[in-house]
């Protein structure tokens, strides 16, 4: 066999091997990314969901039916922050006062959620 032909063959093998490896890993990475995006989309699509988190009551707006709560992270919805939540019924607000540590439940189709239950906790 002539040497230059063998060299061409080996270089071809090198390029094909590198290309195949890149395509294999690249395709796999792309697929994983797609799956992740799909999983995220189904998680956040218009399904009603419910979370229970802990926080502390910072302010009460009875005329607006709003409670302002400093809360921990709400899984797959929002990070820890201080924000106002609509309450499902005025009774919920009457049960708590500013400074109370609470465990509360919000339910709804994000971002349209409301507090449906709240209870004081002792720390």
């Amino acid at each position, binding site marked *: *066999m*002539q040497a230059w032909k063998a060299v061409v063959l*080996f270089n071809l093998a090198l390029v094909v091997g590198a290309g195949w490896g890149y395509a294999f890993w690249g395709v796999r990475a792309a697929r994983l990314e797609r799956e992740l995006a799909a999983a995220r989309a189904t998680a956040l699509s218009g399904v009603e969901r419910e979370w229970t988190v*802990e926080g502390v009551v910072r302010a009460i707006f009875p005329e607006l039916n709003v409670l302002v709560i*400093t809360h921990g992270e709400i899984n797959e919805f929002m990070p*820890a922050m201080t924000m106002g939540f609509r309450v499902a019924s005025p009774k919920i607000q009457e049960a708590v006062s*500013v400074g109370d540590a609470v465990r509360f439940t919000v339910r709804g189709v994000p971002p349209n959620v409301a507090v449906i239950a709240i209870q004081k906790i002792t720390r």
Partner: protein
Amino acid sequence: MLALGLVARWVHLATSIFLVGGSVMIVMAGQSDRPTARRWEQRTLAATRALAVVALASGLVVLSLQTALFEGRVAAALDLAAIARVVVETQAGHVWLVRFGLLVLLAAFLLLRLSVDRRVDWRAARGEGVLLGAAALLPIAAAVEPGTARAIALDALHVVAAGVWVGGLVPLALLLRAAATSEGSDARPYAVLAARRFSRVALGAFAILAVTGALLATVHVGSVAGLVGTRYGRLLLAKLLFLALALLLAMVNRSVLLARLGGDGATVGRPAMRRLSGFVVAEACLALAILGVVAALGVTPPARHDAPVWPFAIRLSTTALEGASAAATRALIGSQIAVLGLAGLVAAATLRSRMLPLGALGLVALGAGAGLALPPLAIDAYPTTYLRPSVPYQAASVASGAALYRESCVACHGARGAGDGPAGLNLPRPPADLRAPHTAQHTAGDLYWWLTNGIPAAGMPGFGARLSEDQRWDLINFLRALSAGDAARGMGTAVEPDRRWLVAPDFAFAVGPTPPRSLKEYRGRVVLLVLYQLPESRPRMSQIAGREGTLAMLGVEVIAVPTDADRDAIRRLGDDPRVLFPVVTDGAEAIVATYRLFAAAPHAEFLIDRQGYVRTIARSRGQAAEMEPLLAQIQELNQERVPVEPPPEEHVH
């Protein structure tokens, strides 16, 4: 197990390197029709074939030992399923896969019996050997830490250059030896030419090795302490020593022996050729030793991630000159004489004439300059001098350090650290004033040494047996805050442009039952830290709460800390006006204990810039005051150009 791993790594590295060098040497020598030259080429090729197989086998051993390490059990080294898992699932495994693929390809190519009589065929075949060998060497660089593109590129250049220089030595020695015999005289011009070409190429490879090696060392070692005080650094020094010896040999070969090979025909100096061959073998042995050190470096944590143990009783630092003008002058003059001496040495090395007197003069000037300049720079040093604190500069650490200080140090050093405690009066030397700026001249590691072992001559006891390691670092963090607090007395309510010096100690805090957060998470935003106490601070707190909208608009994060650490602080602040910024209900004690060192007032407001430095301190009794000046300072900080310098470090200098 460790020894086997080391040997396997060494063999693998050496064979991979020699594989490249052999192919490169053949290409450099070129095609020849002389029988001796052809015999040499065939023998070198046969050797590369064998080396490829050894590289594959030793690579498998390294991989299986690595698997045992990953899995944490010795038996995994022989467990094919475990090895397959490592290969498929880890990044190191992928690199091995690529390496093995390339090595198999190379071995297959070398095993082919190709006819290379035509020039184009010879060039293609030998060139392919170099290409595949270098390609198989490259993945070694992919394992370098940190995996930045720059580090990988540098490491790749480094290994390929090493392959060209180190790998070419043995085949060259064989060629010279063959040509030096009486029956090999036909190949002498060929061997001389090959030796000249190799010498030139090796010089270039050596330059690349030196530059990339120096750059990589700054990445992996980073400091003088890391170089002389860690195992990695000392291995690197050993490598440098071997390298210097090899360089010396190479210089002798190049300047003395290579020149004697000159002349043409069959009459060139056989003894010189034989001696050169011997020297080249010696150089190759040194190179093998270097590769052994490299294999050991591969299994040693880089100096940057290791705690350095300073081996000398002194260190050199320009901080020794602060406030000592006579010493500074002496150091300045000495350094200039030394620079002149250095210039003389360079001149002696480049100029051929008057080399000896110039060189001697330069050497004398260098020595005298160093002798004049260095002594004033010397500062006492201890094994722990460059030890980095294992406990970060955080409020919790400062607070527990403060408690330890009250227990163990107050008697001699005094309540404020002034060295005026009652028990210090009878000591051989008065206790140090811990607030003095000269504490900046001592590293945290120095303080750690004194705390641990005491200063017997001064009557300072050692606390190594009484306090844990963390407790000693807590104390050092407290001393840092104490000294900073003394300097912070001069800080007022106006931002001093571009003067950042008071690092805001990080702290962890929680609001109600929410998970804890830390000040560090607020980097990039301006923070107004308010230490308040009720009822005195009520008017001021109402004022801040009333302007919360404006503060939010300016991008300020307010964090309020009750000085009494009331866990019911939010309820006590009430809802008129509404307070929506974080009010710390967990972690307040440590924050108050730390930040009170900077401002001892009942109510204090700290403005912390986007990089984590305290820029203004407002001390009051909590009465209401104009808000506009504060808002103006915040705006000042917002408009300040943020330098690209790294954020404050969590440890003492």
